[in-house]
């Protein structure tokens, strides 16, 4: 299986704990013989790099600077994410099974890739905008919510880390129970759970 992971943070660019989680995820998937690519953002260390742990990472950079807010910035980065993902796809003779998108940032790229190249994606939700900006009616916040909502509806499946988050998604995004999978990072069988979810969601997307 070949999987491309989208994340806006990945070591050495660490914003919160998501960077470490994705790093661990990619390393463990490789041990399970999954061909893993990570597409991430880093404006000072750019391009392709394969570390000792075997993770193949593409770090994209800003093509448009300055930016006026987080949305114009992230949405312009999405085009570079699409470029790199498409480059992987074409160089691998179109054998790319799944995208795993962590949080909302690169959802637009995943949606386009799904529609254009028929590559399904799972939306791995670490945190959601209604929690980050509680009760915010600000245009920026509601725009980010709309990206999350787009991800929920277009994804082949949604991956969360706790039963609580599953309930929160249901409350805020009306995400149906059969779309959401709970795989706890603390569980012994964590990586097997992730793999099983990938497999199941590939079948859902194919049907």
């Amino acid at each position, binding site marked *: 299986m070949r999987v491309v992971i989208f994340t806006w943070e990945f070591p050495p660019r660490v914003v919160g704990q998501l960077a470490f989680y994705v790093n661990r995820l990619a390393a463990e998937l490789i041990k399970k013989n999954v061909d893993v690519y990570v597409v991430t953002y880093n404006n000072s260390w750019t391009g392709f790099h394969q570390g000792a742990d075997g993770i193949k990472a593409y770090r994209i950079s800003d093509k448009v600077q300055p930016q006026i*807010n987080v949305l114009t910035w992230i949405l312009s980065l999405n085009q570079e994410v699409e470029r790199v993902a498409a480059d992987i796809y074409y160089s691998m003779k179109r054998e790319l099974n799944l995208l795993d998108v962590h949080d909302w940032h690169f959802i637009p790229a995943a949606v386009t890739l799904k529609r254009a190249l028929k590559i399904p994606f799972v939306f791995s939700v670490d945190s959601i905008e209604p929690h980050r900006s509680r009760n915010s009616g600000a245009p920026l916040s509601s725009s980010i919510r709309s990206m999350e909502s787009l991800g929920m509806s277009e994804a082949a499946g949604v991956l969360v880390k706790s039963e609580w988050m599953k309930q929160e998604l249901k409350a805020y995004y009306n995400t149906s129970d059969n779309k959401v999978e709970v795989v706890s990072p603390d569980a012994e069988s964590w990586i097997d759970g992730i793999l099983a979810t990938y497999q199941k969601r590939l079948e859902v997307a194919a049907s």
Partner: protein
Amino acid sequence: MLSWEFPPKTIGGISPHLFNLSRELVKLGVDTHIVTCDFPGAPEREVVNGAHVLRVDSYKTPSPDFATWDSLMNVNMQKETASLITSLSRQVDIIHAHDWLVANAALGLKHVFRIPLAATIHSTEVGRRNGLHTDYERMIHQTENWLAHESWRVICCSHYMSGQVRWAYGLPQDRVTTIPNGVDVSVYEKEFDRAEFRKRFAFPEEKIVLFVGRLVYEKGVQTLMSAVPKILSRVNAKFVVVGDGGMRDSLMRQVGNMRLAHRIMFTGFLDEDSLRKLYQVADVCVVPSLYEPFGITALEAMAAKTPLVASNTGGLSEIVEHDNTGTKVFPGNADSVAWGVTRVLLDPGYANWIKLNAYQKALQVYDWAKIAKQTKEFYEQILKEYDGGSWKPT
């Protein structure tokens, strides 16, 4: 083709440009699809003069400013265009973007499908703003720069604009092609009662001096106003100013102070039909712009057989050849404008000469069918290079 505006949505010049270009491209056998923003009352899908139009949800949730709205609109435009191209079995040869407003959508689609990208840059942020003063403007400038460099080739509508694009983005000369804007002369050929229509604007003994454009500084309408007394000292004339803008009040004060308010008529925005008729009954059309990337007003006057007085600036100076297809005057110089206008009004033989030459030029150079042919050749050149390259997926 991707564009944020297509009729009935018409904000600027891109909408009529696409309307005319797509019609003629279809006649040349180019299967043309246009993806654009939705508009109240306009259908989601329709066929306009043979071109397939898809209108996408232009994102109506509140957004903080125009550029952020545009980024969000591009998300929708990109995903719907991805579905469209897939539904066409990927049989799309060229993605053609019009201005930075669709850059995000077009750039991503280029890479995902590996279809060559072409762009028409109608105007530049650095030109529109006369410099870059804020991060907002710099962001748009850099987006234009990105689009220009990611495009296989870029079309500009005048040599002046091509030069500006090469200078602003450092684009090599062989990546920029000049293909002019066009004008449809047939819309000025309908019969109507000229004398009756003319009465709405002037007495029969008054010559009509016409200005059409936004009432903003760079259009130079204030120069024409300063020339009014000089012109009136030699010719009995009425000045008709069509268009609206921030300078309207100060212009009206200016003519009031000169005690010439009865000689100048501000019509505000005028409907298309009246404007076309007005061109035909006017005795001279003045384009006194200080900055002009192209100068579509000049083209309309030429097509309507109205003698033309225009500033020697930007794209205008390419359209108008002095003493041949019009009279050129110095930008921002009221004496020069007065000289040009009186010369045309007092010498009917000369006026006739320039207007007929201008009409011929409109027919020969600014004909949409010819422009579409050049655009098709431009596409074919890109495809030839694309087919021979390694970027094309196997």
